[in-house]
């Protein structure tokens, strides 16, 4: 499936900003199922300093500094990306979850070493007895790992209410666990915490989701949104994505932007400025399927 993704963020300041520094993670990363065919990042005003590279987790990132006074900042990322369907997975045929920690220990396999980066507490995700108790039900001894994770995913989908505005990016999972409310990033953080409680690697994925307008209505441009889900590592199979907000294993309608230990590692726009007064960001995201010949 090929998509055109447009992600536009506008910051409007009440006073001119004298200088601002930004780190952007807005270029889609590639992975075996996802290839970026064309991408561009336009920034207004034109930054005085800009450098593109990759972060520690392999996500493309852009540093920029704007040194001329500016009343607003507009960042627009446009990507054409090819996303392939994952191979079908038999959840019940995965390794039993309680054998995973042993498989991790002492191994010098690069893939296993890499997986262990997503095993421990990170700035936005701390595990504790609460997350441990929460996850145990889904993981009786010997249960195949992926079956357990799917069960956990469904449980979060069923027991938690999707509600915007009650949490923010820094809301601890403990609070979400208590209130049973949140948005996609909270559910992703919670499920990651739950898996890490058991010594299972889990990483946070930020990205986009193709949305379908209600029957008979035309799709509105810019009404799509950023999304977040997670991925867990299964021996012999590799990383498998799960989306607790939609109770599914992402297929070819989830487009990954970046991954890391938690939201903090993949935040699309970080910035600091001198001056500026108050600011309000507005974001518009548009994900549209395209047919190949028209863009090549």
């Amino acid at each position, binding site marked *: 499936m090929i998509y055109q993704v447009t992600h536009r*963020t506008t*910051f409007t300041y009440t006073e001119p900003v004298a*200088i601002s*520094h*930004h*780190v952007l993670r807005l270029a889609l990363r590639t992975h075996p199922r996802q290839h970026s065919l064309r991408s561009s990042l336009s920034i207004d005003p034109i930054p*005085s*300093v800009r*450098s593109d590279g990759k*972060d*520690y*987790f392999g996500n493309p990132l852009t*540093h920029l*500094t704007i*040194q001329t006074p500016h009343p607003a900042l507009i960042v627009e990322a446009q990507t054409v990306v090819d996303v392939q369907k994952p191979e079908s997975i038999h959840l019940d045929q995965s390794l039993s979850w309680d054998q995973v920690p042993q498989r991790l*220990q002492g191994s*010098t396999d*690069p893939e296993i*070493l890499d997986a*262990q*980066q997503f*095993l*421990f*507490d*990170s*700035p936005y995700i*701390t*595990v504790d*007895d609460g997350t*441990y108790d929460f996850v145990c039900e889904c993981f009786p001894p010997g249960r195949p790992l992926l079956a357990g994770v799917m069960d956990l995913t469904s449980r979060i989908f069923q027991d938690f209410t*999707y509600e*915007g505005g009650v949490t*923010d*990016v820094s809301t601890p999972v403990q609070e979400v666990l208590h209130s049973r409310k949140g*948005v*996609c*990033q909270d559910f992703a953080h919670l499920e990651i915490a739950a898996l890490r*409680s058991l010594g299972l690697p889990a990483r946070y994925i*930020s990205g986009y*989701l193709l949305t379908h307008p209600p029957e008979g209505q035309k799709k509105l441009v810019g009404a799509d*949104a*950023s*999304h*977040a889900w997670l991925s867990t590592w299964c021996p012999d199979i590799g990383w498998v994505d799960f989306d607790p*907000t*939609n109770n599914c294993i992402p297929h070819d309608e989830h487009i990954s932007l970046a991954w890391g230990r938690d939201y*903090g590692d993949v*935040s*699309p*726009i*970080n*910035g*600091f*400025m*001198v*001056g*500026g007064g108050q*600011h309000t*960001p507005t*974001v518009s995201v548009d994900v549209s399927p395209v047919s190949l010949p028209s863009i090549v």
Partner: protein
Amino acid sequence: MNSLSPETPGSFSSPPLQYPPQTDTFDELVDQDGSVRTHWQDFLKGFSTLNANERRLAQETADRMLKGDGVTYLAGQDGQQSDRPWQLDLFPLVIGQEEWQQLEAGLIQRARLLNHILSDLYGPQQLLKNGTLPPAVVFGNPQFLQPCHNVPVQGGTYLHFLAFDVARAPDGQWWVLRDRTEAPSGAGFALENRIIASRALPDLFDAARVQRLSSFFQTFSQNFLEFSQRDDPLAVVLSPGPQNMAYFEHAYLSRYLGYPVVEGSDMTVRDDRLYLKTVDGLKPVDLVLRRIYSDLCDPLELSTESTLGIPGLLQSIRAGHVTIGNALGSGLVDSEVLLSFLPTLCQFFFSEGLKIPSVATWWCGQDSERAYVFENMQKLMIRRVLTPKRDLSHSRRSSFGPDLTQQDQQELIRAITRRGHEYVGREIVSPSTAPFWGASDRLKPVPMTLRLYLTATKDGYTVMPGGLARVSVQSDPRAHWHEPGDFSKDTWVKGDGIFDHQPVLGSPHQTLLLRRGGRDLPSRTADNLFWLGRYIERAEGAIRLLRSLFLRTSGEAGSSDEPETLSRLVSLLVMQKHLTPRRAKRAVEGGADMVEAELRTILFDPDSPDGLAIILQNVRRTAELVRHRLSQDTWNILIDLTSIPKEWTRTKGQSIDDAIRLLSRMIQHLAAVNGMVMENMTRSYAWRFLEMGRRLERVRHLSKLIRHLASRGTPEATGALNLLLEVADSSITYRTRYRAEAQLAAVLDLLLADETNPRSVIFQLQTFDAHMGDLPHEETAASLNPAQKIITRVCTDIRLTDMIQIAELTKTTKVRANLVRLLKQLDLGVQQLSDIVAHTYFSHSLSQRISGPQWLEGIP
């Protein structure tokens, strides 16, 4: 019980040498047979010749120096902070030369090792790839900062300045308790201890042939500066600011090394280069001696919550424009989880054994170690060491096995079973004892640990020949962190007697390594100097006024005053905010006695929000912030000045005469400060900002006084004019000039318009103008800049004013409206000038975070 000399042990009059060491530990001073160890003999011989008086004198010298230097550290206990005096026990720790050399070799090896580990983990990560280190040690450690991976580090030197906490086991073997690789504190205190100990016990110090400390700091600085490619590099000490517990030390190192002490908001990154904001514009910074945690240094890429860092710093490091000591992320290797791996790592890198062992530590991230900890829990200290929460205090991270109840143990075991990699078990140390002298003038053995410092040089690491010894007098000696109630000691490392002919560091206030003059005055320092000038002047105004008021309420002068004058005095107190209007009204109704009583209670009242005590506190606070710009004598006078209120509380009876005497002394102190500033300070930008603050404040004060004392009524008749002249310190000038009773027009002329009177408004403004003209400023085409325009306008107004005419009272209003108008112009001008100075030179505004949307719109 051992007696160390043939003399009978006894009280204050004889040498305090009775010394009973504990039998089950190693004692630094005496061996198992009770004989004094060889390397102590010279010192002890000298010490035993001191008589009681000399001993008392030595202790007093030390106390005075500690107080005079304002040596404090802020001890935080469960979030509560208090300013504590630094505690020094004068009796030093002596270490023999041979033993020292062994210790040195071991520590140098360890420093190299830690640097190697850092350069691997922040680079190729071979140690992880080949399985030498388990991933949890790195990935589970919040001190591993992913954005610092592959950031280039000049010369591969991650650790420029590090420390080790060591202690001696009962068998005499030294052990390392902790590695300190982030930004180890205490070296400044070690230096201060040395200066004090060598002065309080000068003969003993000379005789002991102690290795000097000064060359260590020079070595550090020389090598550090060489990490910059520029000829004349700018190095700074990056501090969290005066609220930090170690700020005293940051300022101290800054003075000693000649690097300005700065905060994150004093710097900015432009074009991937780090700059210091100075009054002369942005100056590139080449080197940063970091005194804040790595993850707080760059909020853009590290901890976004930090307000202490500089957004973009990491990019400027990547661009190779700046070197940070220690490199960001260095805290990774001071983790206790690494301790049990060091022998293996030492073999891996150097194919040799670890020369100094670490205290036995078991990391619970491994099955066999965890099992050991569970079995031996009762005799171990259990520490939770890998938690992202830095605010977890040492005591809350640690449990002592012997103190645990059955239930505690069960809980701990459960926690460790689930999250073993966060925990270590450590042997509980029983360190050696060293003699504590203290105020009781008796020696007693107390547990001791030692912090030793190293710095990187071109030829490897070098150890500071000395260190910070810590003795636990009351606190738990099992703890290896600094607790309130601990004393420090100077550490005397015996040398061979051949020294580089460095003086014993002389004054701590000498800037030995200063490389540059006043041109790099940081904006913040300029701001503080400006305000110091203002506060000093404000104090002087308040003190002069109070003294004049006291003189008028007492004795003959008091009784002769008209009631109107009395109420005017009181209204002045209200103006100075020494008195609330309500209390003032009551006092006036009560007559002269009541006023006097009020005066005495409000004098130095620490609770009054605006009174003299607060002004003096502000003087002291701002002086501390710019202490590196003041001479030792100026500093001493300021400290004396600000401690005079304490004398008042100690004064019996608190008579009016006592008050006048103290106030006069304060005025003398202020005169001395002003003299110092005029005669001893170089005419740098620093001096100009101090002066500009004083001048503006004086105008403000004069304007207030004139308005209160002369804008209505008949000030000639009430004595208000004499008061005005007195407070404005212009009585003599007036008398010699006019040889007549004070008349308003003449007084106004003298205080407002007389360019030859150094107390007049116009004189202040002209002086201010001259200073401002000498500061760096942007060249403008316009003939006058905004500040000059204001000054010209106000001065012209004053010059054009007919003093006789504005002194006249309008019959209808009873107020000298033209005078009031002129004074309002003046006040406005002062305010505008102050704003212009701040706007032009003091911009150290904090960066604020720009956040994207606070929550993501997922699709349910």
